[in-house]
Each structure stands twice: as structure tokens, then as C-alpha cells.
């Protein structure tokens, strides 16, 4: 059925992303290449000139017309990830991502990729804790084709038994590659399992091997019906197309796909952690390694942006605190990083250090704590704050260089924040973070009680 309230289409002569460099003055006063941090910067001005419409069946459509390159990026985000799973079917979200390429009613097995690639297109997908996203990148002429391919699988995914079996083999190899035979993968899996006792973030997106062995067609059919309904999806198209024509095409093809009962909300919240937790991973390895994770805020909490700025100060580049201290001054680490997750539910604030030969993880661990303590007490410098603002802003602009990057960012923000327009606000939110905010979040989250530590204990390959 068709939405009776047709969106008013504004004819746009747009640059899709107008990311104008800060204030006119900055450009002019540029003679002396900035070695000082003297100018308080205005955040980069980002305007997404998009057309948004929600179809009668609940599918949210976001169109970003951009004629800079004769291509389009066509992306579908489903609000489903490993956080929607339950014990016994862990990994099913990611498995469904694979099965979406294995045939539907009109285009049978192999035909999705076969037709797309032989038409000059490329497709891929990813699954995270919170979302599953698909994209097709193709020349502008391919829009009608990808609409047809994507509606076919949303309407009538086949889940053929033969392909369920071979695809499960593929996914198990993916698990063996990126977790079972990967030190980093194994460490992260262990950290999540250690830090979460109740919430689904405890299991890997790839799923436990025994669950992969057990997932059957019935599980998949049910999962597909619930989570791949149009009312649980967002469609984003960015690139070289005409908005009016595209919207008509989308209506014609998506309107007949019925909505389903909305998925049950994820109820479980992780209870407060009451004391430090530690785990070891014994594995054949050359160098000791450590992961330290603290429970952080969810994306809906205001602390998110102060933590993003702090993450940048701690971890971005060779002038960052972690690199300076551990790699350069102590010469104890091969690398050291911070990675603060953005999750619908509270994610982890993680530190990772790989030690150099002859150095123990204890040195890395103590260095992290001492850096965090000093920030909680004394904060950071004005220069560090300014640098983080500039660096986050530049990274932000970098991520919007391609039509794929733009569409992907819109989808991600839409799923995480419930509103893609948050993209326009983020640079300002980074710039608004003060030293007091940094001190406050450092005190609030980085406590011993809230800490989870995974240590790699290297074993020799002779066993």
C-alpha cells in the first residue's frame, strides 16, 4: 500500500555533501602554517540535502542526489544484529547476511551476484552487534536493476537447504580465520564474554561454533520474517540519479511488500559490574598482549562525545598519549590503542597493548591506569582538545568522500541514533566538549570496579 501523504519533492541542484571549511577567516589567515592553537574553530558545516520518505509499509527511504561521479551506492540497513539473538542461535544475524546472497523467488541461487557483477556492479554486506547492512555500488544506469534484486530478496528469500549447508561451511571458515586462528579475534571474543554477564553483547557477532552447527532452516525462516521486514529497514541511495524518478521506482517495487509485526525490543540490560574481572588466553604467540575494557555509555547518552574526544586524545596518531608513553618513552609496546564502541546499548571502552619482547603486560596495564588517573585528576591540555576536534573533523570529512561512504554513514547514524541528521550535529558536539567533561567521564567510567582485563599468555609452538 501506498503512503497517501506523498512527500513534497524539492528539486535540488545540490552538492550532496556541502562540507565547507571553517569560517572565511581561517582560509585567509593561513599564511603561517598552523603551529599554534590560537584560533577557536567553528565546527565544519555539514548539510545533507536529502529527501526522506517513509513508505506505507514502514520502510524509511533516504535519497541523496549527488552527480559528482556517474555511480550510485544503494544501501539497505536492517535493525538487527547479534544483540537481537538468544543463546542457541548466536551468529544467526551474520549467517542471514550471507544467506541474503543465495537466492530468492525471481533471482535464484548465484543469480544475485551473477547478474549484478556482469552488469558492472559490486555488492557486499556487514553485520555488527546492532545492525546488518547491504550495499550495491554500480554505475548510474544500474538503479532499476538493484531495486529489482533487493526487493526480490526482501520479499521472497529462498533459504534453500543446499545453500544453507554450504554457506554454513563458509561462515565456519570465516570464524576459523578471524577468531580461532587469530590472536586478536580470540582476545576480543574473550573480553566480551568476560565483561557481559547478561546482555547479548557477550557473544561474538560470528556466533559460537556449536550454535553455528545447530542453526537450521526453521530458525532462519523465523528470523527473516521478523527482522527483514520493510518496517525494520532503512533504504539509502546516494549518487547520480534523479530523486523523483528514483522515488517512483522505489514505491512501485517496495510498496507491495507487507509490513510484519515489529520485533520484540531487546529487554536485557547489563547489571552494574561490582568488581574487576580478569581472564587469560593461553595461545601459541610471540608477544604478550593485553586488552582492558570498561563498560561505557550507550549512544543515547551525552557522555558519548566527551569519550570520543578522549579516545582521540589517547589514541589518535603518534602525538597521542598512549603512543607517546608506551611506544616512545617506555619503549615497552609495539602498539597501544583505545577503541571506544558506539552501541545502541552500552558498549565497551577498550584499550589494547601489544608488548615488545622482554616486556610484560603488567607494564602496559600500569601505564594505561596511570594515564587514565592523571586525566581524571588533571584533565588534558587545551592544545589536545583542539587537536582532537580537528582530527575528528578531518576523519569525518574523509569518511564522506565517496557515495558509498556517505550512504553508509547515513545508515549507521539512522540505526544508532534513530536519526541520520545527527551527522550534521556531531562536529559541533565534538567542539563543545570541555576539559571538565573529559575529567568527569574519565572519573566516571575508568574505575577499577568497572574493569575487565584479558591477558594473552604466549605459548611456544612446540606445545
Amino acid at each position: 500500500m501506498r503512503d497517501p501523504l506523498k512527500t513534497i519533492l524539492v528539486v535540488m541542484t545540490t552538492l550532496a555533501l556541502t562540507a565547507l571549511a571553517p569560517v572565511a577567516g581561517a582560509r585567509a589567515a593561513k599564511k603561517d602554517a598552523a603551529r599554534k592553537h590560537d584560533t577557536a574553530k567553528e565546527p565544519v558545516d555539514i548539510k545533507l540535502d536529502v529527501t526522506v520518505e517513509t513508505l506505507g509499509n514502514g520502510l524509511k527511504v533516504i535519497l541523496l542526489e549527488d552527480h559528482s561521479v556517474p555511480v550510485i551506492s544503494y544501501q539497505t540497513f536492517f535493525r538487527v544484529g547479534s544483540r537481537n539473538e538468544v543463546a542457541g542461535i548466536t551468529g544467526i544475524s551474520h549467517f542471514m547476511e550471507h544467506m541474503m546472497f543465495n537466492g530468492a523467488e525471481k533471482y535464484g541461487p548465484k543469480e544475485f551476484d551473477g547478474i549484478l557483477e556482469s552488469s558492472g556492479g559490486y555488492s557486499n554486506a556487514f553485520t555488527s552487534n546492532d545492525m546488518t547492512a547491504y550495499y550495491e555500488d554500480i554505475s548510474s544506469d544500474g538503479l532499476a536493476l538493484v531495486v529489482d534484486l533487493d526487493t526480490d530478496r526482501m520479499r521472497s528469500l529462498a533459504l534453500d537447504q543446499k545453500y544453507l549447508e554450504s554457506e554454513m561451511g563458509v561462515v565456519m571458515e570465516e570464524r576459523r580465520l578471524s577468531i580461532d586462528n587469530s590472536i586478536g579475534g580470540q582476545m576480543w571474543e574473550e573480553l566480551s564474554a568476560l565483561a557481559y554477564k547478561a546482555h547479548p553483547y557477550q557473544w561474538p557477532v560470528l556466533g559460537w561454533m556449536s550454535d553455528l552447527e545447530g542453526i537450521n532452516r526453521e530458525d532462519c525462516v523465523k528470523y527473516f520474517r521478523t527482522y527483514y521486514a520493510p518496517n525494520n529497514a532503512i533504504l539509502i541511495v546516494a549518487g547520480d540519479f534523479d530523486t523523483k524518478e528514483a522515488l517512483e521506482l522505489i514505491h512501485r517495487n517496495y510498496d507491495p511488500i507487507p509490513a510484519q509485526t515489529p520485533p520484540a525490543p531487546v529487554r536485557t540490560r547489563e547489571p552494574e559490574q561490582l568488581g574487576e574481572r580478569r581472564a587469560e588466553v593461553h595461545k601459541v604467540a610471540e608477544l604478550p598482549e593485553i586488552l582492558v575494557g570498561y563498560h561505557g555509555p550507550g549512544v543515547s547518552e551525552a557522555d558519548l562525545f566527551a569519550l570520543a574526544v578522549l579516545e582521540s586524545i589517547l589514541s589518535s596518531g603518534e602525538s597521542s598519549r598512549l603512543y607517546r608513553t608506551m611506544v616512545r618513552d617506555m619503549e615497552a609496546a609495539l602498539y597501544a590503542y583505545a577503541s571506544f564502541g558506539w552501541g545502541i546499548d552500552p558498549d565497551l571502552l577498550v584499550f589494547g597493548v601489544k608488548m615488545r619482547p622482554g616486556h610484560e603486560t603488567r607494564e602496559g596495564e600500569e601505564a594505561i591506569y596511570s594515564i587514565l588517573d592523571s586525566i581524571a585528576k588533571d584533565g588534558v591540555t587545551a592544545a589536545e582538545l583542539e587537536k582532537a576536534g580537528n582530527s575528528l573533523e578531518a576523519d569525518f570529512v574523509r569518511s564522506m568522500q565517496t557515495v558509498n561512504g556517505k550512504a553508509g554513514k547515513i545508515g549507521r547514524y539512522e540505526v544508532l541514533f534513530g536519526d541520520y541528521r545527527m551527522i550534521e550535529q556531531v562536529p559541533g558536539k565534538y567542539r563543545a566538549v570541555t576539559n571538565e567533561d573529559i575529567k568527569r567521564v574519565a572519573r566516571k567510567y575508568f574505575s577499577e570496579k568497572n574493569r575487565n582485563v584479558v591477558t594473552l599468555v604466549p605459548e611456544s609452538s612446540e606445545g
Partner: protein
Amino acid sequence: MRRILSIFALGALLAVPVVSAAAQKDVKMPPCGEHTLENGLRVFIVETREVPMVTVRFHVPAGSAFDPRGKEGLAELTATMLMRGAGGIGSEEMAEMIESVGGSLETGTGPDETHIAGDFMARDLPLALDLLAKVVMTPDFPAEEFEREKGIVVSDLIGEKEDPYGIATKVFVKELLGDHPYADPVKGYIDSVEKISLQDVAAFHKDNFAPGGCILAIVGDIDAGNALKEVKKRFGAWSGGRKAAGEIAAVEPKTIPGRRIVVIDKPDATQSMIRIGNIGTDRKTPDYFPLEVANSMLGGGFTSRLMDEIRVNRGLSYGVRSVMNKNLKGGYFGVFTFTKNQTLRETIDVALAELGKIRNAEATGEELEGTERYISGLFPFDIETNADIAQWMVTLEFYGLGKGFVENYRSGIDNVTSADVQRVAEKYFHDSDNLIVVLTNYAETASQLEGLGAVKVIKVDDIR
């Protein structure tokens, strides 16, 4: 608005969802200012308006193939040391200057080249060029930084042993290319890096960093005329010539009579890495376009023959691809995949069968056209960002690919016939005379490898 790609198309919206080859729009490089300074430095400047940023890329025609025997890793260590102090600016101060404006500037080394590249907000182009000029022309090479850097490189090389994918590839390339400089990893070996002195680094810089032969590409939201002025101001007075380096020999295109198997024994592996291949060819080969098509058909996208048989039909692996590594003087061809230990032999056999098939029979017209449309269709995505364009400018100049290479790329692909594909497959993809490198738990898989060829076993701890 300026477009990255110019478009000439009569592309009416098609009623049926089919994309024909004819409908694909032409691809053009954006207008590029091309200059040669009096000292010989080649400069390419392109204005784009997509994002308020600028990419700089400086190319030096000397890479790891120039490393003296026993000091493998010298070119890479020299490149890294450029950023550890230059023109009186210390390593930490330099990082601070770059990162405080949200910029990036990094060095990289390949077999044939060294580059210093990064991107900045467009307003910071003068800063980018200041730093670039200093690191290229007047690096300080402080002794304390050198010792620290060596320590990091050695630790990194020790840590590399933890990565099965990387080890398998490293051994494959070494076993295949043997004594040729391309056989040795760009990063070098633990023992060779330990032998490198600060004098070696300074000498490598002096011998190879000179304006003639170097290329500077600047692409972004800038004024081209002004950018050229800024370049001349900093690089105009640079003088000196490159020391005539010994010519790197061409990689001999010999085939391996019969098959060699090298097993890397990693007793804790539950998944086996597989590398199958032989000597390849160079970047300027007249077989370039037929090879693009043949390689894509064999192991390119999700619908390639190897992907179809190994992943889609049998679920044996998460990924498989075929690789044509093409450098100035040659390279290698390889099929890269992995599978659980239990299906090691089955996967090798399927891969070998596909190598045989593409050699022994012509592809259908449908498969050929599909492959060609796939390659052509994705080509515009290779020229989308400032960094992509800068990379193309350097590549076209360094390899002497000639004007119009990008513009003629699609017709080059379209003109390849099934007979061409079979011809280059016979020439470059070998199913019986080849090298197979396997990283595996050999105790578990030894019996599977019987009858495949002569096996040499290396313990993972014994790899140099």
C-alpha cells in the same frame, strides 16, 4: 561543480533492469596540470571540489629491490626515518604539527618505490608542503631515533609470525622468486634489519632521493596556480642527481618443471593456508588487458570461477582470489585461499582443476562479456577520491603507461576476446608446473598431501 569524472552518455533510463556495456559512461581523468621543474622534479596538480581537503603524494623511484643483500629492509627503514626528524623539526614535534590540524603524512615502501603521502584540510596545503619538503630533502636521521625505530621494526617482525595469512604469503613469494630482490619482504628480516646502520640509511637517502625521477602529485580543493608556486618555492632549489643504481634484473619468466610443495608446519593451526602459483609478468606487459580479464574471471569477484567452486558450491572457504602481482621488472601469479585442515586436499584439487580449465578451454561469450562489464563497471570507483587520483597520476608517470590509459581502459577491456583469455591463461596460470605453499598442522594433514609432488617441510619457528 567540477566533476571528478567527465561524462558523455546518452544513457536513457532503461525500462528493463539490465545494464548493457554500451550504457556505461566514459571515464576520464579530471584536467591535470603537468609540470617539470628545472631540476627535473615532475609535478602534477589537480583541482577537485568534493571535500575541503587536499592529498599530497611524493614518489621516489627506489624501493626494496634496491636493498643490498644482507641488509633487506633498508629502503623501508630509510622511509620510516624520514619522519623521525627533518629540517630541525623533531619526530614528536612533527607528529604534533601534522595531527594538530587533523592531517596525516605517512611513508610507505614497495619493491620499486618509496612514497610519502597524506591528506590535510585544503587550507593546510602550505604546511603539508613545508613538511614534505623537509622530510624529502633534509631528513636529520637522529641516532637515538634510529635505535628506537629499529627496535620497533624488529618487534614487529617477531610479531608477524603470529599471522598465518602473512607467513604463508611471505614464504610463497620467497620460494617462488628465490634470489631475485622481489623475493625478499619490504620490511626485511630480523637479522638483516639488525645489521643496518645509520650510515646505510643516510647513504640510501643520498643515493636515491634527488629531483630527477621523483614525482609530486597534489589533488584537492586548491588553486592549481597557487599550489605550483608553493611547490616551486620549496622544491625549486633542490639539486643533486641520483647515483646510478645497478639495474634490477627482470624476473625470469621460467616455469617450474613439475610441482614443488612447501609445507609450513604450525601444529596449533585448525585452518590451513594455501598459496598456489608461478612466476608472473611486469606492469607494462602487452598482455595487460587480457590478464585483467583472465584473472578476474578466474578469481576476481564473488562470481569468479574459483569463488564459485570453492566457496559457493562447496563451502570450503570464506575467501579465494587469484593475484597478478606486477612490478617494474616482473612479479608473480598466485591463488590465495584457506580451509579447515580436514578439507585441505579437496580445496587444492578444486583450485588446480580450475587452473586447468581456464587453460584448456575458451570461455563462453556470455562469461567473457559479464567479466568485462564487471571490470569496466567498477573502474569509476577506482578514481573517486583525491587519494585515488594522486595515485593514478604517479602510476601513469612512473610506469610510463602513457596519456589516455585511463580513458582507454574500458575499450582495452572490451577488446579482449575469449581466445586472448585462453592464450594468457596458458602462458601465466599453471596447473601442473607450479609451487604450492601450505601452512598447516602437518601431523594432521600430511596424508592428504600424498601424491601431489615433492614436499619440503619448514617449521614455523624456523622461518627467517
